[in-house]
């Protein structure tokens, strides 16, 4: 399964789209598919400072509660307001309408630790999770 281009990926199945110094974060289609029907997303707070690879929230599905990890560090500048009323947006459009939060990047170099679409595709193909 090909992963969308133009995004970076973490081993914890988050995606990151960088525009200027702000990154938009979501979970991948593979992740939403593994979790099943998502019933709740606990997001970080706007203004909260987050560290790369930190655990800052949870995604709760009918099957499990999974931690939400941060692909990059920085300050949270926006969270997706639509998820409170409709968390299943993450299932329907993980790479689009189901985005989770936006972060003002603290360190441009942190993105180097992330995977490109091909590398993430390989990770998923291995069935790393």
């Amino acid at each position, binding site marked *: 399964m090909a992963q969308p281009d133009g995004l970076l990926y973490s081993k914890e199945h988050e995606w990151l789209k960088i525009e200027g110094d702000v990154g938009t974060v979501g979970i991948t289609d593979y992740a939403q598919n593994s979790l099943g029907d998502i019933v709740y997303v606990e997001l970080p707070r706007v203004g909260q400072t987050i560290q790369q690879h930190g655990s800052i929230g949870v995604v*709760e599905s009918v099957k499990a*509660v999974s*931690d939400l990890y941060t692909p990059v560090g920085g300050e949270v500048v926006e969270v997706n307001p639509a998820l409170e009323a409709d968390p299943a947006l993450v299932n329907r459009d993980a790479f689009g309408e189901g985005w989770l939060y936006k972060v003002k990047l603290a360190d441009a170099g942190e993105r180097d630790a992330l995977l490109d679409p091909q590398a993430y595709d390989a990770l998923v193909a291995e069935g790393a999770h």
Partner: protein
Amino acid sequence: MYSPHTDSDIEAMLAVIGSPSLEDLVRVPDAVALRGPLEVPPGLPEIELGAKIAGYAKRNAAVGYTSFLGAGAYRHYCPPVVMSLAMRGEFLTAYTPYQAEVSQGYLQAIYEWQTYVCLLTGLDIANASVYDGATALAEGAIMAVNATGRRAVLVSSAVHPNYRAVLRTYARGLDLDVEELPVDANGATDFSNLEARLADKRFAAVIVQSPNFFGCINTPGEAARAAVRSTGTVSIGVVAEAMSLGVLATPASWGAQIAVGEAQSFGNPLAYGGPYVGFIAATKDHMRRIPGRLVGRSLDNRGNEAFTLTLQAREQHIRREKATSNICTNQAHCALVATIYLAAVGETGLRRAAVLNLERTNALAERVCAIDGYSRAFSTPVFNEVVIRVPAALGAGRVLAELERRSILGGVALDRWYPDLGDCILMNATELTTPEDIDVLCAALRDIVSVATESPAVHV
């Protein structure tokens, strides 16, 4: 089924830590170790045992006393139907159902309990109960900490001292700061400085009790509520005497987003400190943070109404170290008793019982304060407890001791928690407090004063 460690498990673990045997690992000093068999007398026939235990029970001094003790533990009337239903074999377990969905009856009872708690608190959701009011308060504070990401809570000094002690125990483990709001000269929480204290948004929650520990009906006013709202602080309302909810405004109506408290008063008898039953209710936006179990009403695969445990995904057995609470159970049987009590007395019955509490307490306060030397410490209206100031020459301790000699448990001396209230006794009246009880108390209090004035303390 409980599976203990096998011998090979134990050997493997001992090998890892390098200890030759369990006895070697846990060495009990000879002075305190029991090396032989436990020395207990042989078993008795059932009839003899009954007689022996009845003999012990007769030595129980509290029988035959007239009691004005309250302070978080209350005597109330319980209609016989409550226990005859609650003691049915189908219900008789202290424990939450663990093969939950086969216990539809119990789940329905818990669902009804949650519904009652929502009705009484005015809030959207309630859980299946927790151990007691103090635990409920600590868990409510943790909800607020998780909701706000702040690491301190502000609690009124008029919240039950034991509840505050439990809160501090929880806070120590979680490394939270607990600060207090002072009490004013009327026995009410002093909110005058609240806005300034909340300004730096350091506090996750403001915790207020009403009726407070002094019995005072004391809710935050509009200014205090505005300060809480505008700083994003969570307002926690504590109700240590659930009977008050039969006649007083709901915690939601005075701004509480989380209401916690103790429901022992609903049908659960007093029994040497427990068991008790705590409740937690909250607004819908706190739904995912409420600890413990919640029962939901749903439909089964044939379209029939069915009850189910819901939101379990955040409990400890699933979330492990990421769980936000250590509670994986509920106080099932006590909550059941409370539920049946509420169903039995109904809305009208609960209101009448609560009004009786109010009337008897006002009668108690009036009668006691008519005696020379006794007065109310605070002017704030009370529910079923009142702080009485006794003659300073006697002090609370001496008055209580003299009452006890006359087979009266006169209340609780407040100086152990509030050094400034050394001459003060917290007295309780409920619907079980009769006018005759108050007569007996007043006669004794008069007697104590007159004896004291006739024979002043001799100074050598």
